[in-house]
C-alpha cells in the first residue's frame, strides 16, 4: 500500500545542458582547465614578447633573425647562424632517424614473432623515456670520438663533395655528430608513433594484397606506406620539433659559431642551435643580452609552434579514430 500512498516522483525533464549548479561547476571547471593550455601559450608569448621587445626594436626583427654576430660589448645580437644551425642539425637528425625508425617499426609489427614484438615494443618505449641529458652525456663521452672517426673517413673518401669537406682538421663537435646524437634521441619517439600507426592498419588490406599475389615489398610500398604516410609524417614532425628544441645534448657535442653561417659543411666543427645558444650565454649575460636571449626564445617557440601545429593537424587527420 505504501507504493500507492507515496506521491509519484516528479518527472525529470530531459535536458542536454547541465541543469544543476553542481553540474555547471563541474563542466565550468573542466572547460577552464581545457583552455588553461591556451592561457599558458598566450602567457608565454606575452611575457617573452614583452621582455624581448627592446631587442626586436633595437636590432630590427629581420636583422635579429637572419643577421650574423653576437656580441654583448657592441650590443649587437643576431641569431641567423643559430637559427640555420638548428634547422640543419634537426634536419640531419631527422633524415638519419626516419629510415631507422620505420625499419624498427616494420620489424616489430610485421616481421617479429609476437613475443619478440612485445619485448621490442617495451624496450623502444623505455628508450623513448631516456632523458636527453643522458643521451648528451653519452654523445660527449662515448660517441664523439667514434663519430669523429666516421666523419674523417667520410671526408677522406668523399671530401671532393663540398658537403663533406673539412678544412679545420678536427672532426670533433661537428653538426654531423650532433645530428647522430639527435637521431639516437628521436628514433625511439618516431618509431613508437610509427608502430602505433602500423598496428592500426586494417589487417584485411594486407591479407588482400598478399592474396592478390603481392609480396612483402609491394605490400609495403603500395599498401602500408600510403595508408600510414600521414601518420608517419606527423610522428616525424613531432620528432623534428623535439630536435629543434633540444638544448643540453646539442650543447655538449656542437661547436657554436656565432658570426658566420655554416651552410652545408656538416663535417666542419662549426654549427649552431638556438636552444644551446640560450644555455651557453645565459650564465653571465648582461641585461641587454638577456633580452636578446629571450627574443631568441620567442623565435624558437614560434618555429616549434608552427611545426607542431602542422604535426598535430596531420596526426589528427591520420587518426580519425582518435577524434570521437
Amino acid at each position, binding site marked *: 500500500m505504501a507504493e500507492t500512498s507515496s506521491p509519484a516522483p516528479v518527472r525529470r525533464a530531459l535536458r542536454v545542458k547541465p541543469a544543476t549548479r553542481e553540474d555547471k561547476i563541474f563542466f565550468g571547471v573542466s572547460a577552464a582547465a581545457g583552455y588553461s593550455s591556451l592561457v599558458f601559450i598566450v602567457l608565454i608569448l606575452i611575457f617573452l614578447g614583452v621582455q624581448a621587445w627592446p631587442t626586436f626594436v633595437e636590432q630590427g626583427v629581420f636583422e635579429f633573425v637572419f643577421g650574423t654576430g653576437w656580441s654583448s660589448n657592441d650590443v649587437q645580437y643576431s641569431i641567423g647562424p643559430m637559427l640555420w644551425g638548428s634547422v640543419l642539425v634537426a634536419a640531419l637528425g631527422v633524415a638519419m632517424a626516419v629510415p631507422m625508425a620505420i625499419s624498427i617499426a616494420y620489424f616489430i609489427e610485421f616481421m617479429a614473432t609476437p613475443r619478440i614484438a612485445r619485448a621490442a615494443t*617495451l624496450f623502444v618505449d623505455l628508450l623513448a623515456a631516456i632523458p636527453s641529458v643522458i643521451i648528451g652525456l653519452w654523445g660527449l663521452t662515448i660517441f664523439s670520438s667514434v663519430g669523429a672517426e666516421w666523419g674523417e673517413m667520410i671526408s677522406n673518401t668523399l671530401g671532393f663533395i663540398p658537403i663533406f669537406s673539412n678544412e679545420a682538421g678536427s672532426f670533433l663537435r661537428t653538426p654531423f655528430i650532433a645530428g647522430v646524437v639527435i637521431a639516437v634521441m628521436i628514433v625511439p619517439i618516431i618509431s613508437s608513433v610509427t608502430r602505433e600507426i602500423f598496428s592500426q592498419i586494417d589487417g584485411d588490406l594486407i591479407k588482400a594484397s598478399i592474396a592478390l599475389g603481392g609480396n612483402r615489398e609491394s605490400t609495403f610500398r603500395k599498401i602500408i606506406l600510403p595508408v600510414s604516410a600521414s601518420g608517419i609524417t606527423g610522428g616525424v614532425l613531432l620528432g623534428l620539433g623535439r630536435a629543434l628544441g633540444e638544448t643540453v645534448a646539442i650543447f655538449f657535442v656542437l661547436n657554436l659559431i656565432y658570426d658566420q653561417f655554416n651552410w652545408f659543411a656538416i663535417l666542419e666543427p662549426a654549427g649552431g642551435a638556438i636552444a644551446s645558444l640560450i644555455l651557453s650565454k645565459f650564465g653571465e649575460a648582461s641585461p641587454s643580452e638577456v633580452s636578446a636571449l629571450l627574443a631568441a626564445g620567442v623565435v624558437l617557440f614560434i618555429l616549434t609552434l608552427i611545426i607542431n601545429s602542422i604535426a598535430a593537424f596531420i596526426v589528427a587527420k591520420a587518426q580519425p579514430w582518435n577524434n570521437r
Partner: protein
Amino acid sequence: MNLEPVARPKSAEPWARTTNRARALQVLGSIIPIAVAAASWLLGGVDLIVAVIFILLPLLLVSIGVVGFILKGKRGAPDAALIVVTIFLGTFVMVLLMSVVWSLIEAGFSALSPHFIYQNNRYVTPTDPLEFGGVGHAIVGTLLVVSLSTLITVPLGVATGVYLTETRSKGRGFVRVIIQAMAGLPSVVAGLFIYSMFIVTGVSQYAGWLGALALVPLMLPTVARVTEESLKLVPQELRNGALGLGASSWKAFFQVTLPAARSGVVTAILLGVSRVVGETAPLLLTVFPIAETNWNVFNGGMATLPTYIYRFVNLGFDTAIARAWGAALVLMILVGILFGLARFVSRPKSLKKKKVKR
C-alpha cells in the same frame, strides 16, 4: 538458419610455409656475407664500419636477393632487399641505442655505492675521488621539485582530459590541437617563460618552486592526452547507466567514470612525471644549483639530478664525469621505476577487453 563460422585449420597460412631447402638456403645466404665481412675485418684489417657498410650490406643484398629469386622467382628479390635493409638499419640503430644503455650501466654502476645515494656534495670538490660525496641532495631536490610540479599539473591535466571526453563542447578540437602543439614546447622556452615572469620582474629569486612551475607546461600535455585516452576507454553504457539512474553529470563522473578509468589516470600521471623528471634546461634557468641538501622548495638554491649531471659534465674532470654517469644511472633508475609502475598499473585489461567487444 544458423551460420557458424567454419573452423579453420591452424596452419592456414600457405604463404608462411617453409621447407628445409628454403631454410638452408636462407641460412647459407646470410652466413656467407657475414663470414666474408668478418674475415675482411679480422684478417684483412679493414675498418669495422667500412666492413659492415661496404662489404656486408652489398653482399647480403646480393645473396639474399639470389636466395629470394631461387625460392619465389621474380617476386622474391625485392622482398629480400626490403628484409635486408630493414634488419640492417634496425640493427644499426639498436647498436647505437644499446651503446647508450650499456655505457650507462657500465660507467654508472662503477660510480654507484650506498653513500653515493644518500650523501650530499658539501666539502666535495670535483676532483675528489668517488669515496666521498654523492647525489643525495640532488635526489631530494628532484623529488621535491617534481612532486610540487605534479601537484599543480595533475588536477589541471585530468580536468583537461575530462573536458575533452565528458563534454560535448565545440572547442574540443581546438583544445586538442593546442595541447598537441604544446607537447612540442621546447623545454628551454618553458624555463625562459618562468624566468621572464618571475625573476626578471623581481617577484622571486631563483628557487625550487619556480623550477616546478617551469615543468608544468611540459608535463601538462602528456597527462591530459593519456587521461583523455583512458577516459575514452570507459564504455559509454556505464555513463548512460549512471545518468539514467538519475545521477547528475559530476556524480556520474566521480562515482562511475573516474573509478572505472582509475588505472589509466594513474598511468597518465606516471608518464607525465617520467617525461619531466629528466628535464634539464628549464631547471638550469630557474633553480640555482647548490651542493647542500635543501628541503625548502620556496627558498634558496636546490640541486636536481639533471642539473647535477650538466654541472659535472661541464667541469670536465674525469672524476666529475664519473659522478655525472653515476647521477645519470640514478636518474635512469628513477625513470625506469616510474615507467615500470606505469606499465604495472595499466596492466588490468578488463577495460580494454570491453572496448574490443563493443
